[in-house]
């Protein structure tokens, strides 16, 4: 890491790569340090994370209950498989003009794009998780007289949690991507818009500094999720293998 940075530093200092396109890392980091003291960066970050969090939460609230219902009914799954497969591959970005038309350029547009993109991984993972309930586990619960609802809550759902967790982790990075995209393309307030402004204004160092902020944010969110997953799913094969390898 350090070696890569020092190579970059010398290449850019000697103008092998034009510093107008790629400023020396030291300059990027000093700009970043300066920005950390400014209110703009923090309000941008709050805006981006706000879109991420609310979008992800809404998508979760819609997709997981829907996935449970669809996953538990063979008929519903057959009926909805086609519409889901049709809507899912539409890139959220393709909806930008439509969203701007309906919601304008504010937070709502960003939220819509994030929710739309996050919905699918969560929905599909939940459906698979519910369908993958072990028939022997189900028979066990039935043989001990558990009713439909009890079986759903006590057997199907815990079994589906690993799937839902994977969906959540995928959707978390998708949410960040879409929040920044919406800010870049539509101009909703946040890190994305500031990157755009910095680029247009020729503030190359600031632009790179903001990109670094987004990278670090994505990495931090991912490690938080991974940590929670390890805690909650300590019983699951994937985590047990991890613990074993350590």
């Amino acid at each position, binding site marked *: 890491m350090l070696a890569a940075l020092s190579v970059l530093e010398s290449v850019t200092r000697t103008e092998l790569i034009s510093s107008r396109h790629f400023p020396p890392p030291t300059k990027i980091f000093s700009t970043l340090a300066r920005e950390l003291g400014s209110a703009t960066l923090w309000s941008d970050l709050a805006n981006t994370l706000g879109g991420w969090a609310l979008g992800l939460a809404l998508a979760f609230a819609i997709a997981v209950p829907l996935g449970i219902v669809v996953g538990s009914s063979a008929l519903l799954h057959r009926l909805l498989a086609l519409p889901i497969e049709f809507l899912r591959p539409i890139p959220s970005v393709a909806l930008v003009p439509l969203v701007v038309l309906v919601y304008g350029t504010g937070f709502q547009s960003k939220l819509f794009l994030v929710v739309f993109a996050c919905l699918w991984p969560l929905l599909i993972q939940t459906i698979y998780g519910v369908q993958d309930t*072990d028939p*022997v*586990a189900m*028979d*066990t619960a*039935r*043989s*001990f*007289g*558990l009713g439909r609802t*009890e079986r759903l809550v*006590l*057997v199907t759902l*815990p079994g589906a949690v690993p799937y839902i967790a994977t969906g959540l982790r995928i959707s978390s990075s998708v949410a960040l991507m879409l929040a920044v995209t919406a800010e870049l393309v539509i101009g909703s307030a946040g890190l994305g818009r500031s990157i755009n402004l910095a680029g247009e204004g020729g503030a190359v160092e600031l632009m790179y500094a903001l990109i670094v902020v987004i990278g670090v944010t994505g990495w931090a969110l991912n490690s938080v999720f991974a940590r929670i997953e390890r805690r909650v799913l300590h*019983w*699951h094969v994937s985590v*047990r293998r991890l613990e074993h390898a350590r």
Partner: protein
Amino acid sequence: MSLLEVHELSKVYGEGAAATPAISELTFAVEEREFVCVIGPSGCGKTTLLRCVAGLLAPTAGSVVLRGKRVARPPDEMALVFQEYNRSLFPWMTARQNVAFPLRRKRLGKQGAARAETALDEVGLGRFVDHYPWQLSGGMQQRVAIARALAYQPSVLLMDEPFASVDAQTRADLEDLILQLRQRFGVTVVFVTHDIDEAVYLGDRIVVLTRAPGRIRETVLVGLPEPRDQIETKALAEFTRLRTHVNRVIKQEAARQPASPDAQGS
């Protein structure tokens, strides 16, 4: 009246041209405190029979009657032990939680956890109550499943090839454990197996099924002395005789031509 009566039980999977009869007009009874083994060539519908008896599967015709009441869904008086212990136990629960799991419906509160611990103690896992199933060996996992069935305090214990996926030594230990528990709690056992030695060693009576669709080929009374012992019982001439007899019957069955739909089983 017997404790458990199976009356002309038939199960056909599918319909029309694709209809596959699994068991056909099975009739037998199980008395209170009896240990009945069900055995037959592979694919003869043993598991189908057990699932119908357990109330997990609706028969196509006939009935299962427990203490004079027709079984339409899993009765509170029965507990089932599956062959696939690793799938039957919940990996997100400890041994204690697994055993206490079916007790939540009996609303025992704190007593449930205590009963679970006692049951785990009975099967020799008193030191492993807080272990997760995947931290235990196969034999120990099946002990947890047995403890779970016991804690439920059933009058009939149904077992579906419970020891088919453990090694020989563990299997012998588990067989003796079941005999012990049955002695102590006076529970009635219906035990499905494909292992002839196991059936003769454990059972008071052996129901031998024909090849599919399963009918009753023969009922063999096992008069071996109690308590049974892995070495002494198996050294008896009577043990060898019974085992050879059952073996011969099953061999004949397996070699028989597939039954045509209207053929009469003996």
